């Protein structure tokens, strides 16, 4: 099968970030989406720790230990950006003020349940951060993840096996194989990565996929 690499996946999501959007990019692969949003689009990035207008990494030696993103990486502020505290930052998230959030995930269900914060391993202290607030609050929630685990197990399932981050919160799934929309009738294929067939993608998916719109 044809698989997008990480850059390809980030580029695909970036195409769907419209001009003027307020966007939160989750830790890890989602953070890379910003690198591929066209420069003629005015997109404002939110970081849960209290930044709107997150800019690129600073030049070496210019790092400010207070000015980091949610992934604890050093960042800068774009002109027009501003700072605020946790209460205001999560008001933005929970209150429906962000247009789009892009998150990674362990599993997504056919009804848009998201599992992204914990496995069933109880020997480690669990960590959740702001994922549950984003899950319930962002107007559109996009998941960006590989279609299957390293072992080839499907991550898109009829029901999640891992603890949920939120119920029925995902709007769209971008994987290395396809773009899927969560609809009331189930998971609809919006696009297949060129060269793949629906049957091939269905074969590595743990729930029934609806064919792309005609």
């Amino acid at each position, binding site marked *: 099968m044809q698989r997008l690499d990480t850059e390809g996946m980030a580029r695909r999501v970036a195409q769907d970030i419209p001009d003027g959007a307020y966007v939160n990019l989750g830790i890890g692969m989602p953070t890379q989406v910003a690198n591929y949003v066209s420069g003629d689009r005015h997109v404002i990035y939110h970081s849960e720790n209290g930044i709107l207008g997150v800019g690129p990494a600073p030049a070496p030696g210019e790092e400010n230990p*207070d*000015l*980091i993103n949610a992934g*604890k990486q050093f960042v800068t502020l774009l002109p027009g950006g501003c700072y605020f505290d*946790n209460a205001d930052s999560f008001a933005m998230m*929970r209150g429906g003020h962000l247009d789009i959030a892009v998150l990674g995930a362990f599993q997504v269900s056919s009804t848009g349940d998201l599992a992204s914060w914990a496995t069933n391993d109880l020997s480690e202290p669990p960590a*959740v951060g702001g994922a*549950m607030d984003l899950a319930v609050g962002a107007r559109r929630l996009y998941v960006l993840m590989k279609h299957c685990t390293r072992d080839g197990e499907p991550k898109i399932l009829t029901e999640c096996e891992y*603890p949920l981050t939120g*119920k029925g919160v995902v709007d769209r799934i971008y994987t290395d194989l396809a773009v899927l929309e969560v609809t009331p009738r189930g998971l609809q294929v919006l696009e297949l990565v060129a060269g793949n067939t629906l049957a091939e993608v269905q074969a590595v998916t743990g729930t029934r996929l609806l064919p792309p719109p005609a």
Partner: protein
Amino acid sequence: MAEAISVVKDGDVVMIGGFGSSGIPLELIEALRRHGPKDLTIISNNAGVAEEGIASLLRDGMVRKVVCSFPRSRGSVWLQRRFREGSIEFELVPQGTLGERIRAAGAGLAAFYTPTAYGTRLAEGKETRLFNGRGYVMETALHADVALIRGEKGDAWGNLTYNTAGRNFNPSMAMAARITIAEVKQIVEVGDLDPESVVTPGIFVDTVVLQEGLINATA
């Protein structure tokens, strides 16, 4: 610093501001460690990395309970160790719920209904309720005996500004504790801060202490 921190007693609930490397009162934490009270409950977003900050309190066996949202930053070894050996209580709270519970305490509210965590394991055992057909979880106010926070500039009235994203939990924690101690990089004359730019009004702060440079500022 040592004198300011001496108000913390065995068994106290202590809030500690900061997010990752940002806005952490590292010198106050070090003073707290040297002061050495036991059986503390620590409320903070993270749980320290390596031997730094909250990790040093966990290492030294001063902590009975940790309430936090994200204790798994790379190098949070002391939290992991204490968790695995079962020597601490551990309460995980979604970040926005943690902040809002802290704000509720500061604002005199007893509880609130949030959609966050509805239908998940973190809502188990909690009251839930539908409003307009949507599920919400009831969460209660989170108070503290002492809050340790970090500002950029402060004055004798306790007014504070912050550095960039260094605000995070600091302003809310200042409101939620009986006693709030702020570590700042610079102490200015009363009246020198622009009244439009004060982020934490002095009414929320009991003591402002100047950083002594004990800890590498970029740590």
